[in-house]
């Protein structure tokens, strides 16, 4: 079962391209991007350890239930709402950048809302399922795309056109600069797969041990370095800053000479369709569950047979918000929003980590408002 935890670590490592992390880092490549990497690796690993050991002590409980154990209801609801905002905006940003990228490279003649509509419909449907279905969908999609994405990354990494002098130059120049805060926030995103446990811990059995946690820094560092240095190796130290869709152009610089289609770009974008869907599904689902947790009647079911109508309503509103966002924004503005989101995410994540440590202390001292007796299997709904 531990594999479900690592799926999250893996896919967040890969999705960073759609959240514009490479774009932010590359625009700071001469001032402090590289030197913030060690910090990001340390911080990301530390946070992963804290969350995983924390949730190991509360098996089967999501973050909203844990809030209820320790905090008054109004405060728990406030914290839940912050979670809703930060999770759902992530999905909206990714959905917009994805539909924008696809609109540019796949089908520029079609209206950009068409891509968005199809993708939003799929995300809405996927996110409104039960947590268990979401987890299984996640597994299936990830198993389909990860090998091919890794193949593309390694193809790029071992390409003759990769200029190691440019990579050395940037690595050397960057490591001597003082680390920049924005780059730290952006690069620590690569490690933030552990945050998905805040909801999906509900599905974890009582005896789950978080083994193999030492792989988290390795996986994260690999994806971080690849997504930053490979574009630099392909486009040089200067020209790489001119590209807006830096990874799309980088994969376009590869070719599959004997493949069905010779442009790797199309394969890459197809895979990122899946990954974006996984990301939006996870974020919206988490946001939705956090939102529902604010109501008194709410029970944290994970295996309902018929999904409640509120799931459709919440996800429908999110899809509508995405359209509103797409109407009022453009690509450049979205980049700024994504940067702001990356910063906010880091700050909120840090606050949450502090809170979790406080909770552990409170539990030890016995300051709990309610007891955390094991609950029955949470099926519920019709036919349970």
């Amino acid at each position: 079962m531990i594999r479900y935890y690592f799926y999250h670590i893996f896919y967040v490592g890969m999705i960073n391209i759609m959240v514009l992390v490479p774009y932010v880092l590359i625009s700071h490549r001469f001032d402090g991007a590289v030197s913030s990497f060690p910090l990001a690796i340390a911080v990301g690993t530390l946070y992963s350890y804290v969350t995983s050991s924390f949730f190991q002590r509360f098996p089967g409980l999501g973050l909203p239930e844990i809030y209820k154990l320790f905090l008054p209801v109004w405060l728990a609801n406030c914290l839940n709402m912050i979670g809703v905002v930060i999770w759902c905006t992530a999905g909206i940003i990714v959905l917009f950048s994805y539909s924008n990228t696809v609109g540019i490279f796949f089908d520029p003649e079609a209206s950009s809302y068409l891509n968005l509509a199809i993708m939003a419909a799929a995300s809405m449907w996927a996110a409104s399922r039960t947590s268990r279905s979401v987890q299984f969908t996640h597994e299936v999609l990830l198993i389909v795309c990860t090998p091919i994405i890794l193949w593309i990354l390694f193809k790029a990494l071992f390409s003759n056109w990769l200029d190691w002098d440019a990579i050395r130059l940037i690595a050397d120049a960057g490591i001597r600069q003082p680390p920049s805060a924005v780059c730290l926030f952006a690069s620590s995103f690569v490690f933030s797969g552990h945050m998905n446990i805040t909801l999906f811990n509900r599905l974890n059995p009582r005896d789950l041990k978080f083994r193999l946690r030492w792989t988290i820094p390795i996986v994260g560092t690999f994806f971080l370095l690849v997504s930053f240095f490979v574009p630099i190796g392909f486009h040089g130290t200067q020209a790489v800053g001119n590209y807006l869709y830096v990874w799309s152009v980088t994969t376009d610089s590869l070719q599959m000479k004997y493949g069905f289609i010779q442009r790797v770009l199309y394969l890459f974008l197809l895979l990122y369709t899946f990954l974006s869907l996984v990301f939006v599904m996870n974020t919206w689902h988490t946001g939705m569950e956090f939102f529902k947790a604010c109501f008194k009647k709410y029970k944290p079911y994970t295996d309902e047979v018929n999904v409640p109508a509120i799931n459709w309503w919440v996800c429908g509103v999110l899809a509508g918000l995405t359209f509103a966002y797409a109407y009022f924004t453009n690509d450049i503005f979205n980049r700024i929003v994504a940067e702001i989101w990356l910063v906010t995410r880091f700050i909120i994540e840090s606050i949450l980590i502090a809170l979790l440590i406080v909770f552990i202390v409170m539990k030890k001292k016995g300051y709990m408002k309610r007891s955390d007796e094991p609950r029955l299997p949470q099926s519920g709904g019709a036919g349970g």
Partner: protein
Amino acid sequence: MIRKKTLVLCLMLTLLPALGGCQLKDIDKRYFVVSTGFDYSDNPKTPYRVSLRLALPSSKVEEGGAMSVVQTVDAASIAEAVRHLKSTVDKELEFGHCREFILGRKLIEKDGFDNAMQWLSRRRDIQSVSNVMIGEPDAFSVVSLQPKSERYPGNSLFLSFGNEGTEAAHTVTTYLFDLYRRLYETGLDPVLPVASLFRDGYRIDRAAVLDKQKTRLYLDPDETLLLNMTAFGVDNTILALPDEPVNVVLAATHTNSKINLKGGEDPVAIVNVRIEGFLEQSPPHLLEKDWGGLERKMGKHFSEEAEKLLYKIRDAGVDPYGFGLHYLADHHNEKGRWEKWKRLYPDIRFEVRANVSIQGSGLIR
């Protein structure tokens, strides 16, 4: 009840794919551009002449069956020319399959290649792995040639590059993304192949070395071969040692090259080249008489020739090998290192260390 609902939902979902059809142009309403040429017209008001070779789709695939038409228009910029060109054709132009971009020699001399690069890199449908080359005497003549050997319109030209079709030792392959990188990179300068016409085909056996704007140096075929071996490590090349009555020739199957810089104040640029191959032309029994000696002799000859080329390129003030970038990467973050390199480069010494290894003398001794 649930089944009926699902059925309706499924039916509605099947309508979604149909939405795509509304805004998509069919393949028979598109003209596939197969090669594009940019020239300099002598009219200062409309300096850019864009020539497009458009493929005429045909149902049969056979040698010589490829049909195409060429359209040309002059305009104040490349983008305007392409838009204007659309009014002379009946179908929508599609650049997604165009992998050959030919810059006229005169365009580069008069205007540089920066403006063409801006257009090429900005277009979303142009592949980053397109081949860019210089057309001689102009791009139009290269674009408008219709070789008899083509199976598909335009495939003759792109098979000439890389190792897809012919693996020509004298053909330099420059992709669009590589040219764009070299256009901006400090300490790494662009190289472009030069394509001209030769009877019923293309002749791409020379290269031009450019600075950030214009051509500085045209290399002859022998120098281009050396550049290919030393800078790009192209496989399947040839190495000849002058000898009486006929040259000794090594068919090099593998070539590896690596650059290195030694020495602080008086640096030496070292190019390590490793060449492996078989003898293709040699007097009888030459190899078995002195195997190691022949390898050394060939290596020495190669080094001398390559050093001559390196000095020639250095004296033209360009750096297609990326010695400058290598220097910058070696001298981490030192202040003023780029200025220092610019001072050092005109007097730098070169050393080519060729390691020739002969695998055999072919089928006979």
